[in-house]
């Protein structure tokens, strides 16, 4: 087998204290019981044997798992590099010290903006001040820090101040992640997509600031695919480098793959990770280039962008086999472009956010934090 997973995204729970309208969690949560710490431990061991080097603890909010430090310890014991992807709500000093003891390698904290009022409006809950406190505290404890800010129409013009905030927090890395329109974000895209002018100003700002901060803070920014002629090489190709295990143990080639109707996912409670990675229908469905229809099949870029994103193709065309409509060669690009063009008036009043909701019935088996 030529394909090897490098990164495991461990979605520990769908519970989250934030309600961000750009969340890419599935709008319809799967049913079932969350994996136990013992089950996660087995997943980490099997992942390491497959070649996985990194695990990202994500969710929802991974801190909602009372046994998080046990999971970190298990992942470290398997040799994995551990990254906590968190809102930082619930990250008090004793908890952070416990995670440090467990061997956690890096903490990534999300911010919604650089100032409280807007940030809390986007998060749908008072969170900004707590995040600042937590970020300063983890720096005091010596953790490396990544600041993540999802960019969209409401905050992208504040980039200079957002970068300044990350700098003040002495973050090693700043991820400026343009909102990607899946899950809740797709429902909110008429409120979230920036204008072309906003994107152009952002690109210019990032270029300047990257130079200024070279060697002090790494800034990651990718032009959003809605404003590109080429689709993104989503996941570096289906089933090539990534896998996601969701809170109930389903294994997905990408975190949003449940948006693809008719695709069935195997579960770590029933099958080994090696079998799922190598043999399962879901991981082989869009592997390689054989599945591609035209224009992808004969495209010289097919091994570069892999036909783009399968979830986006399914979402925008109803056909997961189709060329990603972000590609200029897609017959569906015109429809996407007409949506993009409808978002160019920066003075226009936008629809209100439809905030992300938590699962109606909490899946939490640990239960201690609720």
């Amino acid at each position, binding site marked *: 087998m030529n394909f*090897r997973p*490098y*990164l495991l995204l461990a979605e520990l729970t769908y519970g989250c204290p934030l309600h961000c309208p750009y969340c890419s969690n599935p709008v319809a949560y799967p049913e079932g019981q969350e994996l136990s710490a013992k089950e996660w431990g087995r997943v980490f061991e099997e992942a*390491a044997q497959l*070649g996985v*080097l*990194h695990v*990202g603890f994500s969710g929802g909010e991974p801190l909602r798992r009372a046994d998080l430090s046990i999971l970190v310890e298990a992942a470290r014991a398997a*040799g994995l*590099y551990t*990254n906590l992807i968190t809102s930082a709500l619930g990250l008090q000093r004793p908890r952070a010290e416990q995670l440090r003891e467990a061997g956690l*390698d*890096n903490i*990534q904290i999300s911010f919604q903006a650089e100032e409280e009022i807007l940030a809390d409006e986007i998060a749908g809950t008072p969170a900004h001040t707590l995040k600042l406190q937590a970020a300063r505290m983890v720096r005091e404890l*010596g*953790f*490396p820090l*990544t600041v993540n800010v999802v960019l969209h129409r409401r905050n992208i013009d504040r980039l200079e101040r957002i970068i300044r905030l990350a700098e003040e927090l002495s973050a*090693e*890395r700043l991820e400026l992640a343009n909102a990607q329109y899946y899950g809740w974000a797709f429902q909110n895209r008429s409120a979230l997509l920036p204008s072309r002018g906003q994107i152009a100003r952002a690109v210019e700002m990032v270029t300047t600031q990257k130079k200024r901060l*070279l*060697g*002090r*803070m*790494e800034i990651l920014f990718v032009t959003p695919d809605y404003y590109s002629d080429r689709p993104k090489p989503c996941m570096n190709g289906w089933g090539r480098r990534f896998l996601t295990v969701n809170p109930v143990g389903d294994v997905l080639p990408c975190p949003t793959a449940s948006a693809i109707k008719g695709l069935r996912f195997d579960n770590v409670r029933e099958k080994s990770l090696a079998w799922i990675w190598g043999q399962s229908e879901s991981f082989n469905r869009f592997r390689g280039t054989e599945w591609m229809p035209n224009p992808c099949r004969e495209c010289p870029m097919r091994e570069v962008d892999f036909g783009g994103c399968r979830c986006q193709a399914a979402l925008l065309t109803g056909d997961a086999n189709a060329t990603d409509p972000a590609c200029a060669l897609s017959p569906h690009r015109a429809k996407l472009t007409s949506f993009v063009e409808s978002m160019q008036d920066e003075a226009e009043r936008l629809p209100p956010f439809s905030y992300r909701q938590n699962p109606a019935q909490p899946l939490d088996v640990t239960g201690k934090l609720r």
Partner: protein
Amino acid sequence: MIPMDAQSRPVLARGVRLRNDPITGEPLLLYPEGVLPLDAITHDVISRCTGDQTLDSILSSLAEEYEVEEATLRVDVCECLEQLRQQMLIALSK
């Protein structure tokens, strides 16, 4: 970036781990969401970046290992370290 000098003591930056790939055995740097496979020479440089050794002593130890003059190595090693510093993978120990 503060320029390096002979007395600078390079060290792996916070959050960066050096390990061997469990599948291929090749040396790697791991950092948040990233992997950098190392060629043999870069690995020899990085494994000397302990925070204790100065740039000068790293250069003389490498020169000894490769049986060449220090001057032959200096430019390449400094360039390699500067690049790793720009990528936030190597820092200078205080």
